[in-house]
């Protein structure tokens, strides 16, 4: 599945859109998507793929927008030990770390 995501990201980029790519780089405990799972987001709000069961995508999109703006990669962590994480709904009880980078 990750194949389609990278291809789609490249297509969006070739069309001149800004694109960010998010990748699950580490997980602990129960987490819905395995390491290597990816999601691509463009500046029009299109997205493909997923890095969780849908619970943290909103927060990831928010960070992805920042990365599209400044080109800087970001690392974001989610987990139930963190009250904020509970708010974005990682209800499965695991922890996940997501790397967000710009596609140049």
């Amino acid at each position, binding site marked *: 599945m990750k194949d389609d995501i990278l291809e789609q990201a490249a297509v969006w980029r070739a069309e001149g859109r800004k694109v960010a790519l998010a990748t699950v780089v580490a997980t602990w405990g129960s987490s819905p998507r*395995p390491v290597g799972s990816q999601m691509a987001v463009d500046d029009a709000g299109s997205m493909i793929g997923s890095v969780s069961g849908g619970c943290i995508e909103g927060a990831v999109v928010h960070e992805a927008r920042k990365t599209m703006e400044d080109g800087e990669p970001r690392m974001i962590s989610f987990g139930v030990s963190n009250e904020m994480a509970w708010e974005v709904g990682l209800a499965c009880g695991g922890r996940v770390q997501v790397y967000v980078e710009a596609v140049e």
Partner: protein
Amino acid sequence: MKRDITERLLAARKAGRPVALVTDLGTGLQTLVYEDAIHGGFGLEDDLLEEVRERLRQDRSGLVSDLEDEEDGVQLFVQTHNPPLRLLVVGAVHIAQALAPLAALTGYAVTVIDPRGSFATESRFPGVALHDSWPDEALSALTIDNRTAVVTLTHDPKLDDPALLVALRSPAFYVGSLGSKRTHAKRLERLKEQGVTDAELARIHAPVGLDIGAVTPAEIALSVMAQITAVRRKAGAA
């Protein structure tokens, strides 16, 4: 991700060439590690390079710490990009009709081989790659690698045996064959007469599939897919 890296990564995947993308999570720099080459923003020490290649072989993405730079907290993320898993099914029979979509859902590219024209038809196997040549010819032409599983389902020695002869001498990670214990015992005798060694014969999973009491074609397909998964993930049950 730099454009150069993206393009090379996509090209490698299109060519079916295994490649790992290594990202330095501190700097964002990236390097591509192939089985026999490396290209990108930074080099890797020999032991680290070997670790990345081992991950590539095992198709295991994840974090590796740079041993040399541990105090600097350098962290590398390896993402493996391997060609798709494949399932080659010999026998366009009823079980194959259930197995093909199940395998596709599980992430396998499926090819069904059957020289009996009326079995391997588009209407019986919508969207599935079909081969109507003799099984041993078809399997040789499809170049079995270590990301390939082979299952024979025809029950017919004329078709299954030549397929097994090719599969057992290939790097296939799984070889399974449909048939009762009695059928399989006879099959082993025949293959032995054709010079197949005991070690090669021991590779055949037969009767095929995990023992879940499967009865219907769909249940048998499920047991086969479960066994292939167990072997691939190196779980104890298989």
